[in-house]
């Protein structure tokens, strides 16, 4: 039976565990904390948005995630997306690159260019970004374990092409702590991994002050089973760990906090999501101002990409994901995000085709051009429900953060596998709830198709040939480069790592000499060792 029997008085809780009432009034707003945290857009505490005019002045950046095969193939997709209105790039790297391996590493066999673009040396970046104006299109690098190396590579590319690093914008994901919870492209143990994030923040603050070296991701923690409130609370705990690391270097909070950004998920209940973002913005501003003594408003901004929604999309009836994606884009627009990207409808199956990626782009463009989402700032403000829930979500996040600190802090909990265990237990319960029909998913546990086999899915082909071309290209670079310069740079890298110095200058030298991702990673592994995953259930 598909139609649920409704009991209007039955208690309903959102995923974050907050009870949702059938009606909200001014009394609810008052009893949940009033409107003291609402304020005005562009002013502390920024609940309503980090800019005064928001999308009226500039719509969100559209930054579809893309990359596959070798850099030539990826360059073509980049150009296609830009021609269709993508206003930023979000680079997907293959797993060998993400794990710090060269394309000819025996362990990389079968994985080169499969889930993203393969990168071995600076030569690959030169090809991938050929013909793309790095001053006009901001590039986001979805790279974590190997982030310091790839940031150095990107800065070296920009320098080589004549851009002024002081003006260069762009983002690296570079959030290693969440990789230990979900996503899994770690390389080194926890402590040196945090040290490397600190190196990138420090180096960028000094040499590329407009570049965003870290995008802290609640996104993947949510995908791993966290509630929306946990997603944001854990992300803030992680961001604080990076800020603390940067402060240890003697930087002032205002020298780098404005260049920290966030990446959050957008699937789930519309109101819970929108209130999560409004609540988070106020809370982060308060943390930066009151705990860290930030004075520059930019340091208090929760700048973000609100994107994806992969965890909410379904394998069943994939074409319905186009509609889900449209609602997720609506959530993203109502949340006051700076950047948006959508998972494409076929992503439970394959890498998006040009066709499905274009539908995602059009979905976001519809909101700008037809639906009036850019005309008024924070249009849901003042709703009794939205303001009450925003207050409640903020309190929930504060509780989770306090709990995390009381249990020894996020770094300790991640190192011991405790956050991983908690969210994975929740993911298990959610799967059980979906299978039992308690948590309803259209097409999965209700409104199923009689037959579930005809899908309009075109599989992205994996070309073994791309890997062969990539390895040949890598070998050519190895032959052409100055071997002594590479060796000297790698020696400096190891020495600097060993001495606890910032490794970014040595990485810059090494990438410019066309050292490979694998070579640089190996040097760092010699000093830092490798991460060993704690397995806890």
């Amino acid at each position, binding site marked *: 039976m598909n139609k649920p029997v409704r009991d209007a008085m039955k208690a309903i809780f959102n995923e974050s565990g907050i009870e949702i009432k059938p009606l909200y009034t001014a009394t609810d707003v008052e009893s949940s904390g009033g409107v003291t945290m609402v304020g005005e857009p562009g002013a502390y505490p920024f609940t309503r948005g980090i800019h005064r005019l928001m999308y009226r002045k500039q719509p969100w950046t559209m930054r579809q995630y893309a990359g596959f095969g070798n850099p030539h193939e990826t360059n073509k997709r980049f150009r296609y997306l830009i021609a269709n209105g993508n206003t930023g790039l979000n680079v997907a790297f293959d797993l060998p690159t993400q794990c710090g391996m060269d394309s000819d590493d025996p362990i990389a*066999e079968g*994985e080169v260019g499969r889930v993203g673009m393969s990168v071995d040396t600076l030569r690959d970046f030169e090809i991938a970004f050929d013909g793309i104006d790095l001053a006009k299109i901001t590039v986001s690098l979805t790279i974590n374990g190997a982030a310091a190396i790839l940031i150095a590579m990107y800065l070296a590319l920009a320098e080589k092409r004549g851009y002024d690093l002081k003006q260069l914008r762009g983002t690296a994901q570079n959030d290693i702590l969440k990789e230990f919870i979900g996503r899994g*492209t770690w390389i080194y143990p926890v402590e040196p991994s945090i040290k490397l994030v600190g190196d990138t923040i420090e180096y960028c603050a000094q040499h590329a002050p407009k570049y965003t070296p870290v995008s802290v991701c609640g996104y993947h923690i949510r995908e*791993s089973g966290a509630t929306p409130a946990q997603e944001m609370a854990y992300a803030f705990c992680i961001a604080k760990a990076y800020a603390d690391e940067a402060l240890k270097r003697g930087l002032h909070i205002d020298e780098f906090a404005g260049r920290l950004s966030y990446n959050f998920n957008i699937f789930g209940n519309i109101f819970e999501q929108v209130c999560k973002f409004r609540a988070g913005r106020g809370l982060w501003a308060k943390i930066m101002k009151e705990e860290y003594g930030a004075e520059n408003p930019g340091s208090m901004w929760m700048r973000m990409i609100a994107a994806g929604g992969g965890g909410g999309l379904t*394998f069943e009836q994939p074409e319905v994901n186009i509609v889900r994606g449209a609602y997720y884009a609506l959530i993203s627009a109502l949340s006051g995000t700076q950047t948006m990207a959508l998972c494409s409808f076929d992503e439970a199956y*394959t890498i998006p085709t040009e066709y499905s990626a274009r539908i995602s782009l059009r979905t976001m463009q519809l909101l700008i051009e037809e639906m009036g989402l850019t005309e008024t700032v924070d249009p849901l403000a003042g709703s009794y429900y939205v303001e009450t829930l925003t207050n409640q979500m903020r309190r929930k996040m504060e509780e989770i953060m306090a709990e995390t600190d009381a249990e020894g802090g996020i770094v300790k909990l991640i190192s011991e596998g405790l956050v991983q265990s908690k969210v994975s237990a929740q*993911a298990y319960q959610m799967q059980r709830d979906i299978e039992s029909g308690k948590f309803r998913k259209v097409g999965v546990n209700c409104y199923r198709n009689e037959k579930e086999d005809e899908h309009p899915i075109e599989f992205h082909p994996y070309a073994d040939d791309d890997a062969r071309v990539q390895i040949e290209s890598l070998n050519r670079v190895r032959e052409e480069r100055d071997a002594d310069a590479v060796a000297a740079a790698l020696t400096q890298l190891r020495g600097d790592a060993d001495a606890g110095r910032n490794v970014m200058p040595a990485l810059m030298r090494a990438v410019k000499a066309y050292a490979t991702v694998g070579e640089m990673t190996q040097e760092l592994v010699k000093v830092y060792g490798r991460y060993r995953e704690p*397995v806890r*259930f």
Partner: protein
Amino acid sequence: MITAKHIRVLLAKPGLDGHDQGAKIVVRAMMNAGFEVIYTGLRQTPEQITRIALQEDVDVIALSSMAGSHLPFCRKLRPLLEAAGLGDKLWMIGGNLPAQDHEELRRLGFVGIFPTGSRLDDITQYVREKVQ
């Protein structure tokens, strides 16, 4: 409850794929079904999986693959498992496995195939039936 046999399962994450949410859900489902589960964590090579399967004397060798490299990986793993005398164990695989690859996976010996959308109880039921 009397169980005829205590079932031991090795659940491995092959290759470089970091998506472990599904694997961990299946581990919990199997533990709750009363199986003893050895979960390897991420980044296992064919050699490592073979060694652990031997050492732990498991009845089931299960892989979870989300990032598309299941066929090349299973082609490398199969001869190692056979050479180690593990050909009589139950070989399973779950994850993002396009329907057009199922026949090849079966041919390689991975007879228990549970793609995205599979139900947890179906997985544990299958193991019980095949191993008992």
